[in-house]
């Protein structure tokens, strides 16, 4: 066991391997507030990667409704139950991580986990749009909503301290040094499924025909070409942006993800208490009561929601949100100049330019040059 530092829980923790931070770490921010659960991201990924035999049940990207949905069913409830009490002292997590809980336990595994049965993987969108609670007579909209639900979009987090990698007895899972993308060596895997059991997010999936395990590959062939993954570029609601994520000390505030996570602290990791230092960050939904969100995203929720509400007056923050979905290409750096957000690639070339405020155009009711009336017909 080695000691590694996890800034998401602000302390050292145990991990089977020494920290070996990659040169760059793949990361992303998902704005939960804008997701409409159209599932285009899921379909993009499915068409690109999981349309083979044995992959029928797999959704490397999925969108589930909280509180009742989950793919596989109840994955987070079960993971949190296995972990025991999750206590914080300010920024510092004082409970056990998944690996520390296994060390203290007696089940003979390096990570606490469970193997979902086949039925738990079925019905990927169970609980869709189910609200937390019933609407009583007299209920009216307020912020947060008295009766609420929200969509949670999930991909592999490409954790900095992955549970899957820690649990593979054959070291068949590796983290790429060039971009921190976590992959399963398809030649080396023998289908033991320790990884499936260990990943608390259940983003490791066993192929029932090839009998080895697979997972989200972060569209690495696209990333290698300077493109964002399919789930990001396909997103209709333009809720996602990818970027390189660094530690707080090394944050590059010109990089979109670093800016939202470290600069504005408006994007938070999911279940940091697992102790895996995951690299997909979420802007929490402003319409959901805080206690539920704190359990998922930690104590930074209230501040994040406040900053999000103030974003309309913050050009830089607004600029990053406007760059979401503005280009297929990986945004290395961004700037906001004169009411426009500009994205740059690794070479420093401009790849996107978006106004912060959509220009207003007034179209007359009668078009004199074409001698027709313009109709506002839906």
């Amino acid at each position: 066991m080695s000691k590694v530092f996890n800034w998401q829980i602000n302390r050292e923790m145990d991990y089977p391997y020494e920290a070996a931070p990659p040169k760059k770490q793949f990361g992303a921010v998902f704005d939960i507030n804008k997701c409409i659960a159209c599932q285009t991201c899921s379909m993009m990924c499915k068409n690109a990667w999981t349309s083979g035999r044995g992959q029928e049940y797999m959704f490397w990207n999925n969108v589930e409704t909280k509180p009742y949905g989950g793919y596989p069913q109840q994955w987070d409830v079960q993971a949190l139950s296995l972990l025991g009490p999750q206590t914080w002292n300010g920024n510092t997590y004082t409970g056990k991580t998944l690996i520390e809980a296994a060390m203290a336990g007696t089940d003979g595994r390096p990570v606490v986990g469970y193997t979902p049965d086949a039925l738990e993987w079925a019905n990927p969108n169970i609980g869709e749009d189910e609200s937390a609670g019933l609407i009583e007579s007299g209920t009216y909209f307020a912020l947060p909503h008295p009766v609420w639900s929200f969509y949670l979009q999930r991909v592999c987090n490409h954790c900095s301290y992955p549970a899957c990698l820690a649990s593979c007895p054959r070291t068949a899972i590796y983290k790429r040094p060039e971009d921190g993308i976590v992959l399963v060596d398809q030649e080396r895997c023998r289908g033991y499924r320790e990884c499936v059991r260990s990943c608390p997010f259940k983003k490791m999936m066993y192929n029932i025909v090839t009998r080895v395990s697979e997972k989200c590959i972060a569209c690495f062939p696209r990333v290698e070409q300077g493109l964002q993954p399919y789930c990001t570029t396909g997103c209709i609601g333009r809720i996602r942006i990818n970027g390189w994520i660094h530690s707080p000390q090394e944050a590059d505030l010109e990089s979109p993800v670093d800016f939202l996570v470290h600069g504005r602290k408006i994007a938070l990791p999911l279940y940091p208490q697992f102790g895996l230092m995951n690299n997909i960050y979420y802007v929490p939904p402003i319409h959901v009561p805080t206690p539920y969100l704190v359990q998922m995203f930690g104590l930074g929720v209230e501040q994040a929601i406040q900053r999000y509400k103030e974003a309309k007056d913050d050009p830089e923050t607004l600029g990053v949100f406007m760059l979401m979905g503005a280009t297929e290409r990986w945004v290395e750096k961004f700037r906001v100049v004169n009411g426009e957000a500009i994205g740059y690639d690794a070479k420093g070339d401009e790849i996107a330019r978006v106004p912060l405020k959509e220009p207003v155009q007034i179209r007359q009711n009668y078009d004199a040059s074409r001698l027709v009336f313009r109709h506002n017909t839906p």
Partner: protein
Amino acid sequence: MVDVPLINKAALALLVTFAFGLAAQGVVLAQQGPQLTSIYRSKLPSSPADGAWKDVPLAEVPLTPQMAIKPTLLAATVSSVSVRSVNDGAKVAFLLEWADSSRDVSASRQDLFRDAAAIEFPVGTDIPAICMGVRGQMVNIWHWKADWQEDIVKGYQDVVDTYPNFYKDAYPGVNILTATPPFRFPADFDTPAARPFMIGWQAGNPMSQPQRTSPVEDTNAVGYSTITHKVKQQVDGVGTWDQGVWRVMFVRALQVEDVDAASITPGKEMPLAFAVWNGANQEVGARKQTSTFLNVTVEPAGENAAGLGAEPWVFIVGLALLLAAGYGAFRLVDRMERVSTGTGHEQ
């Protein structure tokens, strides 16, 4: 002293000889550990159920759960395996039998694990460290898998075998003009566009290869986490399950052209270890029950049953000593009789 008739002297001499013989055998056995002989027969049994196995001596090998390295097995679900072996001078067969109440032959669902058994041989003359060998002491592990067995018997297990009512009308790269939903793997998927989706298959992973010729995987290992599919697969076998018992036969040529394969030499002794997996308990990989060593000697061609278990000269010398002891006893009793009845003083 009573008058001891001749027949009683002979019986007493025989008793002494027998007692010495037992003691000597006990000493010899204790020094050598659990033993098995791979009996020579002119023809190998043809299957696990072949009646020819009945009079082949067996060794009952106890199994304990693997607890040396995580992930560990907390409690054994199989407590022992019985091992028999026959060789015909060219090939050797091992029959493993163990109790398993469920026949787990599928790894084709997220939560299903298959039964398996393995024999571990040293490569070279060093005794391997228990469990997977160590760098510098390679082992050759013959790993029989129940799902590979089922693949051979029933055809490669596909989605439709797990879910008989499954339907999907299209896959990328599958020619829907010539193939009929819900399709069959691998036949309908062997196209350049379809193959990459089944990346384990495409990458050549042995777990994913649909055309199986043997249910036994021939592997090498040099320690934990190193088990590797050998380039040359030279072990065959067959396993059948009947009323709560698996019977698995492993067959291979005694000598193969491969420096990393076990060399099985008639007349020589080798320490073998065994492992069993119970799929119903989700056992796979390191989560298994293993044995300590069983010393197996391959009986050379032409010898009959009841293997000697030790070098021939030991028996020649031993027999001479026993005969001398028996004669000595006979003479002693005779002398005692003469003294008591006064029929003579010295010879």
